[in-house]
Each structure stands twice: as C-alpha cells, then as structure tokens.
C-alpha cells in the first residue's frame, strides 16, 4: 500500500493561491475580450464575420462547461487527491499479476 499522507494546510493554501493567481487574471482578460466582441458585433456589421472563430471556440468551451458540471455533480472533485494513489496501487497490482502470469506459463 502506498502511504496516503494528509495534504498539509500550507500546501493547500499554496495551491489555492496559484489557482486564484492563474484563473483570476486569465478569466478577467477572457471575459473582457468577450464583452468587447459583443459590443463590436452590435456596433459594426463587418465585425460579424469574426462570429465564425468565436462560435467555434464557444462550441468547444460549452462542451467543456457541460463536462465540468457533470464532473462536479458526479463527485469527481471530492477527495481530490485520491485518484493519484489509486492509480499507483492499481499499476503495482497489474505489474504483480503480469509477473505471476509469466511465472505460471508452461
């Protein structure tokens, strides 16, 4: 079994700060540009052609938003560190079984 130490408070704070530092400015930049785009489309008909690349982006992003909501609803982010331990344990068990199978070959 792999040791599963509790995440320290400091580490959680560091990760939280990094997440806010990235997502905050990036989200601001993104939504500001989206707002400018809507204004441009309203004011200037020529800007309408940019709807194609933006629509492409929004279609992809809408899918990701749905996936994010689905994942949250299905508890994918509860006990967020657990999957990394499960993965390693499963891998170790598969390696052991693989080894056993080879030993048992006639």
């Amino acid at each position, binding site marked *: 079994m792999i040791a599963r130490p509790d995440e320290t408070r400091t580490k959680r704070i560091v990760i939280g700060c990094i997440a806010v530092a990235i997502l905050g400015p990036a989200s601001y*930049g993104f939504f500001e540009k989206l707002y400018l785009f809507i204004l441009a489309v309203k004011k200037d008909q020529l800007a309408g052609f940019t709807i*194609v690349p933006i629509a492409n982006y929004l279609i992809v992003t809408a899918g990701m938003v749905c996936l994010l909501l689905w994942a949250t609803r299905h508890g994918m982010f509860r006990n967020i560190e657990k999957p*990394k331990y499960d*993965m*390693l344990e499963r891998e170790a068990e598969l390696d052991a079984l693989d080894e056993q199978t*080879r030993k048992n070959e006639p």
Partner: protein
Amino acid sequence: MTALNVSMSPPASSAVRPVDGLVDRKLALWHLVASLVFLGVALLAGFSFSLQFLQKYPFPGIELLSPGRWRLVHTNGVAYGFLANAFLGCLYWAVPRLTGQPVYSRALSWFIFWAWQAIVGVTAVGLILGHAQALEWGETPTYVDPVAFLGLILVAVNFLTPIFRAKGPMYVTLWYFIAAFVWTPLVYAMGNFLAQYLVGGAAGGAIGGLFIHDLVGLFVTPLGWGLMYYFVPIILKKPMWSHGLSLVGFWGLAFFYPLTGIHHFLYSPIPLFLQHGAVITTIAIEFVVTTVIINFFGTLAGRGDALRTSLPIRWFYTGMVFYFTTCLQCSFQTTLTFQRLIHFTDWVVGHAHLVMFGVFGFWLLGSILYLFPRLIGAKAYYSDALNSWHYWLSALGTLIMFTDLLVAGVVQGNLWRNLAPWEESLIASMPFWLIRSVSGTMIIVGNFMFFWNLYKTWQMTVASRQTQPAMPGTSPMPA
C-alpha cells in the same frame, strides 16, 4: 471482450484478470513500430529539404521529388505518421490499465490500425503528386480528409468507451484523454472542412490559425501531458505532487487554449481586438503551463537521481524543460512588438521544431523506450550505450537546431527591417542553415541508432525464446 473487475475508485481487487487480457500488446507494438518507420521517413525528408537551402538538394529538377513537396511529407509524416501512431500505441497500453477496462473492440482497433496507415500512406503519395490542400499542417489531400475524420471518430469511440465505463473520480490522465478524443475530430473538421468549403477571406485565415495551433494544443498537448501524468509516477513509483493542481492545469488548458491560434495572424486583416484576445489567452496559457511544470518538478523532488538512472525519465523531463521554454517563448513572441521582428523568419521554424520534436517527440521516444521491452517481453536492451547515444545526439541536436534558428531569425528580421536587399539576408542565413543541417544529421544518426537497437533487442529476445521457450519468470526491463 469482458471488462475487468476493477472500478475507478478502489484499487484493483484480487479478482483482476492477468494484464494480457487487458492490453493488446501486439497492437500497441505495431503502432509504435509504424510510428518509428514514419519518423525515419520524415527525418530523411526534412534533412533533404534542408539541403535545398544550401543549394545541395540531391534530386534537382525531378517534379515528384521537388523539395517543396517533400517538406510537406516531413511535417505531415511527423504529425500523422509518427506522433499519431506513437500516441495510439501508448494509449492501447495506458487506457486499459488506468480504467481496468479493455478498449471497445479489438477488431475495431485493428481496423483503425490498418486504416490509419493507409491514410498516412495515401497522404504521402498525394502530397508527392502535388495534391496538397492549401492549409498549413492541413495539407492532407481533400479526398483523404473525410476518411481521416471518420478514423478520428472511431478512435474516440474505441477509447472513450472504457473511460466512461469506469467508475469513481478520474485520474487526471483520463481527463486529458477525454478532451483530446473530443477536440481532435472537431479541430480536424474545423481546419479541413470549414476553411476549405465554407469560410473564405480573413475569417478563413482566422480559422486556419486556430487549426494550426489547436492541432498542437488540443490534439498533441492533452495526449502528451496525459501520458506524462501516467508514466512519470509509475516510473518514479511516487504519486504526483498534487492531483488538485494537475486539474487546475487541465481546466486552464480547456478554457484558454482554444482561442490562442489567431496569434499566428497578427498584423493581418483580422480585427485587432480578436488578435489582442489571442495574445492575452496565450499569456494566460503560460501561467497554466507553469502550474503543470511546478507539479512535475515537485513530484521529482527527492528522486532527482532518476534523471541519471532512468533514461525514460530523462527524456520526459528534458521534454518538459523544452516545453516550458517554448511556452515562455510563445508568450513573448505572440506580442505585436516581437512579431515585428520575427514574423516569417527562421525563429518560427526553430520554435516549431522544439515543440514538435523537442517536447512531444521526446516524450514519445521516452515512452517507447519504456514500453518496447515490456511489449516484446525482453529482459534488457541489446545496448544501453546506443540508447544513451540516442538521447544525447537527439537532445544536443535539437538544442543546437533551436538556438541556431532562433539567432538566424533575429538576424533575418533585423536585415529585413533595415530594408537590406533580400540577397543579403540569404547570404547571412547560409551559415545558420548549414548548422541546421548538421544538427539535423545528429538527430537522424541518434534515431537510427535507436532503431538498430530496437531491432537487435527484438532479435535477441526471439533467439533467447528459441533456446529457452517459455522464458519463465522473465521480468521486464526496469525503467
């Protein structure tokens, strides 16, 4: 095929079936071998094209061997022949082991294998015959596009089925894979159909820009990082530093990457606010990349000796350093100030080589190095020295090529900016182009050493099986 008795959340139970029922090793091996065959062809095509710049092209005046067409064989061979095949080979190993479920259908998997080789082969022939589509990195002839698109959908069905059958919180690798399987067909359709048939002019140009960059960001990047999140912990036998941070990296990529491609067309008729948007999202991506790099180096902390003792780990982390370099470079070079100097110069060529070979090529070569003995049941490689030479020649060759082209780009940009005659910029570029060909030779020699080593390892394993048929207790080569 029946699923394994393992769910996503609890560790594998004692009822788990032997791994051979889970992973189709032969299929994975064939994909990896196909990837290396295409890599060999692509490297030679790239090298012969580089000789054109030195006025030493070996096949002058032959239309079918014209350098412009073979450049396309080089780029498409790397993208669809080498990278796509190598990713598929690694996926056939990683997805069933991560989910505890076999892929959707073994028959479908073999069909995909042969169909994909046919697609790449027909593409290469089409390009040589001059049927290229006028879209950078989307030169696959128009008659290949619908088949390739269908192939990508079949790949998605084959791999998404086991992922969605698994239960419980998903490991970050699977998040990246889901995204790649959804994004890749969308990106392919956007570039090859929208820009070709529906959207023209500047909007078509914007779509082309999105396609070029999204092919890197939404096809190879999620698959590449997904594989790193899988291979690095299992080789180090240590969990990732933070799974939470890895998810921040994934969702950051998901939301910020898709709009960055327009930065390929700065100073174009595309509205400036859209160009600015692309610059901002590109810089945002650099922050996301930083979290990923922090996470991987946090994972390496206390296991730094692995860089010396494990060659796959060395390939992976060299690729990560190169990745950080390219992304940092990207966040500067997409600014309008930088573009004034470097646009249309060899700077961009250097950047592209570092991304495609120095990062994703390195990750996949490291993965192949790890998987090959496991797939053929070899005890060890024929020669560790050849593997070491492969790494050093490739790493130094890539570094030299990147630096050389970077400097060449600055020289060219300054000459053009100062309105020097075009011929003068060609004369100034010649020494850089010579160094590019020499560094390319280093990469080619290193990789052919690797191919030879793989062949001899396979030969050695077959011979050892003949003298000792069942090879009882054979343990795969340690990482």
